[in-house]
């Protein structure tokens, strides 16, 4: 389920949450869910890459107690890089991926603009579900 796949449910979409911002992300695999969640977070950030900026890459290695924890850590890492280095990532190369550990290289650019910073990626109501072969997660961001 790449971001431009159609028809069918979108790879990610923003949904309502009273205090904060939330997305639902989907993927044909857990790894694809992680990639689409990262792209969904870019939409919340209002990330627009600077076309003149040189490509950047960052290596990310994480472990967690379960897949939900790994997803929070993954997005938190990308949100940290957005806040401290003004970087957004759109492509990911996974060298290792399991529900509790990953190693990846994230490829992206400096932002020409970012509308928002993410204070935190929350565990609120976070559960990764698999229905009809599609992995789905609703992620609430404190903004």
């Amino acid at each position, binding site marked *: 389920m790449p971001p431009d796949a159609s028809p069918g449910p979108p790879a990610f979409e923003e949904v309502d*949450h009273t*205090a*904060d911002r*939330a997305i639902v992300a989907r993927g044909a695999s857990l790894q694809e869910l992680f990639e689409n969640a990262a792209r969904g977070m870019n939409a919340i950030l209002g990330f627009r890459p600077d076309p003149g900026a040189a490509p950047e890459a960052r290596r990310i290695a994480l472990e967690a107690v379960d897949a939900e924890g790994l997803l929070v850590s993954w997005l938190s890492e990308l949100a*940290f890089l957005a806040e*401290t280095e003004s970087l957004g990532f759109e492509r990911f190369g996974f060298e290792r991926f399991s529900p509790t550990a990953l190693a990846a290289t994230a490829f992206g650019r400096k932002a020409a603009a970012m509308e928002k910073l993410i*204070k935190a990626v929350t*565990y*609120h109501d976070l559960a990764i579900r698999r229905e009809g072969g599609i992995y789905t997660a609703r992620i609430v961001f*404190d903004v």
Partner: protein
Amino acid sequence: MEIRQIAPFLYEIPRGARPGMRVPARFYADEALAAAARADRSLEQLINTATLPGVVGHVLAMPDMHQGYGFPIGGVVATEPPEGVVSPGGVGYDINCGVRLLTGRVTAREILPHLDALASALYAACPSGVGRGGEVRLSAAELDRAMVEGARWAVRRGFGTAEDLEHTEEGGCLEGADPGAVSDRARARGRDQMGTLGAGNHFIEIDRVERIEDEAVARRFGLFADQVVVQIHCGSRGLGHQVCTDSVNRLQKAARDWGYRLPDRELVCAPLESPEGRAYLAAMKAAANYAFANRQVLAHRIRGSFERVLAPEGLPRELFPLYDIAHNIAKMERHEIEGRARTLCVHRKGATRAFGPGYPEIPRAFREVGQPVLVPGSMGTSSWVLVGTAEAMRQTFGSSCHGAGRRLSRHQAKRAVQGAGLRRELEEGGIRVRAGSLAGLAEEAPSAYKDVDRVVDIVHGAGIARRVARLVPLAVIKG
């Protein structure tokens, strides 16, 4: 769900309403706000907090409550050692988000011709919005000192006066902060954000005292009609956000190891006296002190702007501290339960301390009347100065509301409101707006919030704080 009204403006959900509740849940509302609370998940979240180990008395939600994650916004939860826990979710990601109010000697009538210049000066002097760091770049050692000393560090650096510290909750410094408990990630986020406002719902506002409701207390607080006052609403910025993120992640495993069965993973917690609980408290205090220092530096910048714009006009430019209060914090406090004074950890998430008369924690100048309670409203509406009461000590662990409380999600607000149109509307109403992002402005539209006057009517009616003065905005500065 069984909900019964037990007093005017006070509702209770009994302990047996759901298995696992250790204490009853109470919330303050009128009929309309009670209906609104039933419509989102704030009551369910409040009930969840009543299941936390070591919770005592009753869990509470203020009338500005709305759905958060883990704890509801507007929640007050007290736990008692040794089995009592501290929960990072009970403080929230923006540790020591709070409000400082500065009072002028200048009147709104005097300031009006210079309001545009003043708003622009504040916008230039107080970095706000996404990606704007501050001018106060901290070395690693200085960041440590700011985390240990809080606003005292800022005053020592020349950003304010000793009077500012006396008029700040906890003197602007929580004892027991340990920078060693703060991660490198949190430090990296905090290093260049000292003295910045950030984005979201944070703001600086120049207000006019529209009316005084309690002359005697207002006089004690130094408030008078048509006076110019300034509100600063912000917190610990990325440093505090990261401290919470780190703690929530770390406690995911620890909570399992202790066998806690929690209805929401944002409720993870640790016994107050465990190594994990102590580590969180030490890091939270460091972040809270960073926030006190941040508001202190911003206050200094605001004073500089008043000096630059008003002094050449021969107008009074002094700004005195009324008070600085936290509304996202957990603190050890003494409270009486069933006739016995006990030491409790009071979590306030979107709630303010509202101690009544006589408490040594209150600045000497206000000790006879009670502490100032600052309640910012939504942008372009009104805000309130209230005073804490003895009744709050009996009912709410000395707590009251913190604001208007959201009604619409940020996403809904953006769909319903155009930033440019809102800015025009506010300016047609005579309010100067300086905002970095029109989309951000739309998310904070007044229509996205409850009516703050109504929220204040409820806390006043319930007796957990009393009205002192109503403020209306003259200029809003936002990220």
